[in-house]
């Protein structure tokens, strides 16, 4: 469904991604793990069109995203839950969700999906009229996920949904991702919490300073010595 083919990208003179290739098939959860500054966020931003690749190709659903603007990419069915959540702080929870559905015009469908979002994260229903910026970090993360789903994407990009969130809630969020996937959602999950991510994902890639150094099934990576040493804190 998503093919990233030998992309190079960076900021100014800094080259951050050096020849990164990865692939996500329809119905899969794929995780991209790596330490701080490896280039995970940069990779997702390239896919979402907010960062332009210098060379290489990104193909989504059979179409090259080269000349597609960031907002049009969402229309193609690719939604992102960005790093740091990026909730609209002075929009209510409901309005945040409405913005998630910005590309759609089917009122009934939107209302239905709003109900689905509230079923997935009931706390959002209680907080509907509250401003996004007044939610707790964990609630904001749930809102960010729900908001991304409101566009009815074919594929979800998630950037460190566990960041700064209590372990219990992380489990809840990962359960939600698993559930979404069971219903058919394709997911590319960026994580620093390698253990959880690799348990959840079908396959995983390891990014180190802008290069993919390993890729394998999630379970295989979990037992890989290099991963155990560098990302699971075991010697």
């Amino acid at each position, binding site marked *: 469904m998503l093919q990233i083919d030998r992309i190079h990208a960076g900021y100014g003179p800094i080259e951050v991604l050096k020849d990164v290739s990865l692939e996500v098939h329809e119905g899969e959860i794929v995780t991209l793990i790596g330490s701080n500054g490896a280039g995970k966020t940069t990779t997702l931003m390239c896919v*979402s069109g907010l960062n332009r690749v210098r060379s290489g190709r990104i193909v989504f659903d059979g179409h090259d995203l080269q000349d597609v603007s960031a907002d049009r990419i969402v229309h193609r069915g690719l939604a992102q839950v960005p790093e740091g959540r990026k*909730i609209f702080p002075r929009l209510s929870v409901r309005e945040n969700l409405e913005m998630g559905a910005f590309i759609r015009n089917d009122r009934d469908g939107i209302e239905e999906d709003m109900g689905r979002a509230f079923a997935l994260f009931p706390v959002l229903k209680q907080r509907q009229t509250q401003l996004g*910026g007044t939610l707790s970090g964990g609630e904001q993360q749930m809102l960010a996920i729900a908001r991304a789903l409101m566009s009815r994407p074919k594929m979800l990009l998630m950037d460190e949904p566990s960041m700064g969130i209590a372990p219990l809630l992380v489990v809840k969020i990962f359960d939600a991702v698993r559930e979404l996937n069971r219903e058919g959602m394709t997911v590319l999950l960026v994580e620093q919490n390698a253990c959880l991510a690799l348990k959840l994902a079908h396959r995983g890639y390891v990014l180190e300073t802008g290069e993919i150094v390993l890729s394998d099934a999630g379970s295989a990576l979990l037992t890989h010595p290099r991963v155990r040493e560098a990302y699971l804190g075991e010697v």
Partner: protein
Amino acid sequence: MSTTEVLLQQLITGLSNGMIIALIALGYTMVYGIIELINFAHGDLFMLGGFLALTIVGMLGLDATTGNATTFVAVGGLVAISAIFCGSLNWTIDRLAYKPLRRAPKLAPLVSAIGVSFVLMNIGLFWGGLPMDVFSDGVAAAAPKDFPALASNKNLLGEASDIRFTVKELMVLVITVPLMIGLTMYVKYTRTGKAMRAVAQNPIAAQLMGIDVNRVIGTTFIIGGALGGAASVIYSLYNNTIHFQMGYRAGMDAFTAAVLGGIGSLPGAMLGGLLIGLVRAMSDQYIEARWTNAVVFTILILILIFRPSGLLGARLREKV
């Protein structure tokens, strides 16, 4: 006239001027809210709206003797035409002078805006030199131009009353209040209005929602410009004179109002406009007109010291 009556009169005058200032202030605050640019050209855009209105008035041969019904329709038409003109011009200015600088340091579009301000002012100077009756056949292009009193000075409280609330003041109210309510509803309830707020609060996230940020910014310029255009007609009818440099003065008041109310906040711009209008009227009356600018800015500085984000400015910060 008793002291109470004097006070009431200044309230009426101050609020009327304040409503006009508020309408212009909305244009500053909307653009600032969405791209953090102080659009210095906004006041001059407003000025051109007045010149367009006077040109049309001249071509149609309207003046104080024109019948009520015709005048009523004409004023409505002038407001609409000036609003469309200033809205489209503002959109064009954004495309040509600001949009190419979206990723540049903040100072670049600011300097660009100052440049546009001068260009518009020169267009006004040229416009005032056109060979038309209303521009005194183009002699003394830089001189103030009389704007016919289409809205009369008739006192609606009866000619016996010392307090004057005239047709002009009524006109200001009847035009500005619905515009402000309309704008508030638009931004609060419509899809584009919500998208405007989303872009203002987080443009990256807005793009991740599939919002075409440049389009939303363009719409903001159109609406802000249109309000300035409407304000220009009201201003011209209220003051009965226009001048190619009037955008500087009015723009300064409006910009100050926007900062006072909390730049980026729509209710803030409205409140700020009314307050500036009131303070000016009170200072003119109770201190002395020549001190008014100093009074206004002293109050502004004091308020900003205690409330740096303005009276109604956003105080809620994003959690990262």
